[in-house]
């Protein structure tokens, strides 16, 4: 599954990038977060609630935040497990300054295995897209809620 989208964030590019590389800040943006455990400055483990069709329960997500090729990029990769399922998401965000704001053009490649894919079936893609969109939406809201100019 491949998704893409963009968010326009009223913050400078450095601030956005710093946010995207901070585990405790990105972690809070995961939809239906239940538990967050930061491992080091680039990794965290989160437990989230998911529900796809009749499959409902908790997933463990091991998340790595990586700087991209240059300072206009940030990457997030997720390995998920639980509910008899496996999940891999590789996403990257391209950050472009536009009129004092930052245009975040993101794309994500996701693959899901196990019960979520089998039983979730055709509901899965829409649900996965929603989760990724919600995450980037939350990132925008969190950032804009912080006082401007404060880099993390």
């Amino acid at each position, binding site marked *: 599954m491949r998704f893409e989208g963009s968010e326009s964030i009223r913050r400078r590019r450095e601030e956005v990038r710093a946010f995207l590389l901070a585990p405790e800040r990105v972690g809070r943006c995961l939809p239906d977060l239940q538990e967050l455990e930061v491992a080091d400055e680039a990794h965290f483990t989160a437990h989230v609630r998911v529900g796809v069709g009749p499959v409902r*329960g908790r997933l*463990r997500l091991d998340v790595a935040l990586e700087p991209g090729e240059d300072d206009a990029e940030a990457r997030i990769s997720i390995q998920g*497990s*639980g*509910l*008899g*399922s*496996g999940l*891999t998401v590789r996403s990257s965000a391209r950050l472009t300054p536009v009129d004092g704001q930052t245009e975040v053009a993101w794309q994500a490649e996701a*693959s*899901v*295995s*196990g*019960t*979520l*894919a*089998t*039983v979730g*079936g055709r509901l899965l893609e829409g649900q996965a897209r929603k989760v990724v969109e919600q995450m980037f939406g939350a990132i925008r809201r969190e950032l804009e809620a912080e006082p401007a100019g404060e880099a993390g």
Partner: protein
Amino acid sequence: MSAVQATDVIGQRIKRKEDPRFIQGLGRYVDDITLPRMVYMALVRSPYAHARLKAIRTEAALAMPGVLAVITGADLEKAGLAWMPTLAGDRQMVLATGKVLFQYQEVAAVVAETREAAFDGAEAVEVEYEPLPAVVDPFASLRPESPLLREDREEKTNHIWHWEAGEREATEAAIRSADVVVRQDVVFQRVHPAPLEPCGCVADYNRGTGRLTLYVTSQAPHAHRTLLSMVSGLPEHMIRVISPDVGGGFGNKVAIYPGYVCAVVASLRLGRPVKWVETRTENLTSTQFARDYHMTAEIAAGRDGRVKALRVRALADHGAFDAQANPTRYPAGLFSICTGSYDFPTAFAEVDAVYTNKAPGGVAYRCSFRVTEASYLIERTMDVLADELGIDPAELRRRNFVPPAKFPYRSALGWTYDSGDYAKALDLALETVGYEELRREQEERRRRGELMGIGLSSFTEIVGAGPNHLFDIAGIKMFDSCELRVHPTGKVLARFGTRHQGQGHETTFAQVVAQELGLSVDDVIVEEGDTDTAPYGLGTYGSRSTPTAGAAAALAARRVREKALKIAAHLLECGEEDVQWADGRFQVQGAPARSVTMKDVALAAYTNPPPGLEPGLEAVFYYDPPNLTFPFGTYVCVVDIDKGTGDVKVRRFVAVDDCGTVINPMIVEGQIHGGLTEGFGIAFMQEIKYDEDGNCLSGNFTEYLLPTAVETPRWETARTVTPSPHHPIGAKGVGESPNVGSPAAFVNAVVDALSPLGVRHIDMPVTREKVWSILRSHGIRG
């Protein structure tokens, strides 16, 4: 054997003796068994189709309330049980070690005090995987760049075996020189037997007696006991396998599954009974599938429609392990029945088998070892030939049938057909359906732009495996058996090595025994499924029960009669040579009024045996069939297609079956109704599908569709009777014929309806979407 008796019970519509318990909810299936101190097991399964196992963490699961044990592949490895042999000479992981090879593969087993706690525990087991690229396409699997799936094997390839039969050169030569050659690619999709009762077991190891009792959903309890003994190292006499009432099998319950082995290990470890019953999703995604055969057929023929040669190639996708249950000598099963009902002068067939990251199998689903694939292929391709030559499909079949005078008939691929009268079945089917009239109607409708199709299938089956010099499974010869005990009051206990799952053995076998002993069906009770009491046999699948155990029933009864005759002579005060068995009793030759019944003899066997003869009246017969049996028939299907929706409506379906002597017509018809319905589901609705990552997309009944009463057509049945010359009562077996013969009739009907558009073939399942797309691609709208 005597002439027809006044007391004939064979051929009667006798109500089933097993039914009173089922209609009152008093059947006893595996999940109904509850034993003192019993605990429950759930399995942790792989979400990935192909992945390296990096770590399994069980601490959290073990800390859950009620969880008693977690078993992993590493635990089993220590006991030498991480792998088990399949029935096809391959081996299969019980619990994964090193890597997982299909989605839903068994990775760990959690045992807990309650079912719910076991499932909670399974969810708490943490498994770390490194996903690997999955191979789901069998053709891709053979390409050099494809990842090697089975690193455990010496052969570093995904190719499993190659098998061939017939004359390669002669077939090639005939194809080169023929007037006409048609060639058709045909896929028989992956399907699943999906019996309504899922698989499961209760393993009960008693530390006091040292015995293991395994209650299990098994079509072959004796073979399971022997293999379990070989796998576990437990001495065979210390294992008792009981297959209680089985809620449908259709081949799905022939194999030994990892869950059974894990439950046994758990019971040995805990000293408590362990119940494991799979969920429907587990059933559909991990247990025996069927088919996944990718075939090409070429028929060479003259302009007159006479066939000259058949060449067949097939690629068999077995999934992660070759876990089919085929006789050792026949890795492609009885696929070489693919010449069907037709007199091919020469033929050649070859099959290659391959591993993929899909569930292991494939079993014979209501099929006698790949007969369904073969029958579908030839019946489909004969229609392609008919289309090419512009000959009516019924006429083309008739021209090429093996004629009655040629039986016993040796086919180009080496089988000796026992008996048949194919034209007779075809004629009856055509007459019953009103074929000529339907063809006229079809022409009219076509002129009006309507889509109506008529499909035929004149199949030949090959069942009753099998002769012991050719047939074994895992080395065990494919005989079957009957043990009869006649009690002093003339009542009979009859035990068999087979295990019915709805086929009605408790009635039909009682009819055979009653007939042979001159008793009433009510005098005979049939028992199957307990290895402590039943004689050894290979079980019920491949329509083999009547050809093998049914024969054993007649012959064991005749053995009883041999001794009974001595007792009768004693009672009648005459020489044995003066006594004859006639009209269901022993009579003095020339003075039929002087007679005794089997009941009289039975009493005497215990109360007044002749001097010098040992008391009692019992017999055992182990029957080695001299040949297979070859049931046949012609099915005609009439369909109307809705141009707007692509919906195919089966207007009529006439099934003429010939299964030799019919023991109980009511049960035979019931078998045919059921098999046709399964064939209907396969033709129109069912496929076990995978996405490119190896996710199984058909893991429940909302995706893997079974026909309901609403879609299922009304079946019209009729029969001809051509007894098997070598079976003691002439019976051939019938359970699978309708599932073997019907898919081609359905698809042929749809293709016939669409043939004005130039359509020559559609792969199953022929869904509404598929038909709709074909119509749209030809610019046809409703």
